[in-house]
């Protein structure tokens, strides 16, 4: 081999080796498809979405199922122009995944958004990532398709219309009619009657109540609604405004009353580690007298697989009145489900077409196929089961909305209230300490 050639090789070999290594890394880091497709379904040539991407939660398949049904039927045209694409994540991931996507401008068209961050003043809201639905619905001329009470509930809870009311729920007690009848119990209308009913069931060897310690809201709802009955619907707002505290005697009474139900053993053994599936299976198996839950339970009531006793065995009554309290039994805890928001950046005419179709058809479709109530009017007549009609009547008679316990506060408060709710019932924490934990969380949330 000539000397000059060996020199050339010696000089260039390291450079070639280095370039090859860099090329390997560049290849490894490059996009797998070699193209520039956007996984969020955004950035079409005319701006906005290229597909109707929806990030939902695994725990609640209801919206996804109904949208899929609509995409194949009433919304087929909208779907042809902007195909529906659904991705599910665990509810626990929403708080970290969605803000991260927002910060990277990688939000899907529609997504479940963190409750606290989506309120006016919250990071998601203030970042401008959320579409103003009231203005959009007005522009599209579909506001008439939203139940006024549902729209009002969204605005009361979040301060603005940031969430599509795919659900409209009232909450209260589901009860086993057969067990009530067998033990001569009337539907309670006052807190004292409620406790007496629980005591009667307990004496008869029936577990009076059930709740899931792993889903703290099934217990904290007792607190917020008791406070709304005893102190009025502004009870929690007064705490937010600094005019009251959970350590105040009247607030502490609410915590003590709820704690006393657990102390009496009304929730049965293992309430702290119990999960929500166990709660509903206990109830529908006929082993429990009463269960606090929402009107979304209707779909389970009419599901033969979940409810072998049949819908006639169960009824629904509002949270009882607290004697001498300033609240009313016709103030209902209401919500519109998890926050389902739209990306302001990805909105375009095709997304608008989807919204029009949803607003016009979702209410009837959901009722017809899943027996559930949404915040949209039913434009097509659907045969409504008796219990559903009864609950709709109760919704219509509601005079005020009670917001849930965690709603007006921050994320730390939500965690503190929920994770300590089970121990509040099984004696793991005293009412005084529970109040102190809540106060501490409010201070930490700032």
């Amino acid at each position, binding site marked *: 081999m000539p000397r000059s050639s060996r020199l050339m090789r*010696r000089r260039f*070999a*390291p*450079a070639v*080796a*280095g370039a090859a*290594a*860099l090329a*390997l*890394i560049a290849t490894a880091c490059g996009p797998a498809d070699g193209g520039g497709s956007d996984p969020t379904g955004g950035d079409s040539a005319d701006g906005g979405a290229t597909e109707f991407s929806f990030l939902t939660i695994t725990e609640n398949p209801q919206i996804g199922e109904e949208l899929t049904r609509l995409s194949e039927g009433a919304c087929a045209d909208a779907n042809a122009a902007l195909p529906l694409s659904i991705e599910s994540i665990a509810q626990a991931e929403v*708080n*970290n995944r969605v*803000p*991260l996507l*927002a*910060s990277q401008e990688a939000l899907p068209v529609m997504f479940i958004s963190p409750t606290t*961050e989506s309120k006016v003043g919250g*990071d*998601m809201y*203030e*970042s401008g*990532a959320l579409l103003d639905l009231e203005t959009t619905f007005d522009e599209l001329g579909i506001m008439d398709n939203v139940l006024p009470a549902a729209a009002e509930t969204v605005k009361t809870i979040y301060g603005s219309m940031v969430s599509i009311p795919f659900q409209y729920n009232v909450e209260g007690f589901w009860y086993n009619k057969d067990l009530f009848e067998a033990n001569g119990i009337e539907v309670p209308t006052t807190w004292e009657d409620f406790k007496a009913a629980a005591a009667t069931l307990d004496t008869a060897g029936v577990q009076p109540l059930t709740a899931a*310690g*792993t889903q703290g809201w099934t217990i904290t709802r007792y607190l917020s609604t008791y406070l709304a009955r005893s102190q009025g619907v502004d009870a929690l707002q007064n705490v937010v405004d600094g005019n009251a505290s959970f350590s105040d005697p009247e607030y502490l009474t609410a915590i003590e009353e709820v704690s006393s139900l657990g102390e009496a053993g009304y929730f*049965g*053994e*293992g*309430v*702290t*580690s*119990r*999960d929500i599936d*166990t709660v509903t*299976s*206990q109830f529908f198996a006929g082993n429990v007298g009463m269960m606090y839950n929402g009107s979304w339970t209707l779909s389970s009531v009419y599901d033969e697989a979940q409810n072998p006793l049949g819908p006639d065995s169960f009824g629904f009554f509002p949270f009882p009145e607290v004697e001498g309290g300033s609240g009313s039994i016709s103030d209902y805890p209401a919500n519109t489900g998890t926050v389902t928001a739209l990306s302001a950046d990805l909105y375009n005419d095709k997304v608008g077409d989807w919204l029009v179709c949803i607003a016009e058809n979702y209410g009837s479709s959901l009722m017809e196929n899943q027996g559930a109530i949404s915040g949209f009017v039913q434009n097509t007549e659907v045969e409504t089961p008796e219990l559903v009609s009864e609950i709709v009547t109760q919704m219509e008679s509601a005079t005020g909305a009670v917001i849930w316990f965690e709603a007006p506060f*921050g*994320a*730390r408060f939500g*965690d503190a209230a929920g*994770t*300590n709710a*089970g*121990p509040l019932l*099984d004696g*793991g*924490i005293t009412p005084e300490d529970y109040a102190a*934990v809540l106060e*501490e969380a409010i201070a930490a*949330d700032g």
Partner: protein
Amino acid sequence: MQSVLGDKRAIVILLAPALLFYTLIKVVPIFWSLGLTFFDGNVLRGFTPAGFANFTRLVGDSNFWESLTFSFKYAAVATVLQVTAGYLLALLYVFALKRSSVIVRTICFFPVILPTVAVAQLFKRLFAINPQPGPVNALIEFFGGQSIDWLGDATTAFWVFMIMDVWKSMGFFAVLLFAGLVDIPEEIIESARIDGANGLRLVRHMIIPLSLPVLLSAIVFAINSTFKVFDSVIALTNGGPGNDTTPLTLYMFRTTFTYNEYGYGSTLALALTVVAFLITIVVFRSSRRDVTAAGGAKK
């Protein structure tokens, strides 16, 4: 090839991409996180300088001290139990089962390869009280006792963690320590036996000192994994009841990604790093001293 590797520029060029890659994905985030400790905010809200406010807050944060205490307690008890169980199994392999230990070793190692979340679900069912009592509570009821809400109470939940951890990891430590034990020369053991050392005396005065280096390695492994426990806690109790089973790792995760406080979350991460670093120093110092002692014993 020799001409390429003999050239310093070639070495630099070959190493540079890997080094750059390592720096980008490992070193930069560490310093980035360190920088965040002096800021307040998150990716959506933006960041504002906070000076030493996050550090002041850390000192007065009762949740931090509680989770740090839980992490220490978890690491200490789990390390002792894991290594002890692994060591006993290793002794069983070497001195009792000898060459027929392969099947037992394989069976005992099996839980190590199972996903932690699956193991946690298994133990959840094992110690369940609802909807039906799990096998443990069924056994208690069979003997006339009353079912226990194992995961609903901080003390009992802690011991469920310990049982689960030992079951899952003792196979790994047994194999690790087994390798150390088979390395002990047979003639030394034999001569000790001839000198009258048997049973516990043999283990205490000969086997343990001679296997001390690998035993210390096992302890380092155990502390390292148990102090950073995260996934099994999420799957089994999610840190509850209350915050009673929340280790520092979970508190850090929640602060950063649930409460969206990136600055304070980074401060907690820094605290975790410092504590882990201190533990490593203590263990390695003890390790150096004891290895020498073991070497002395060999002589």
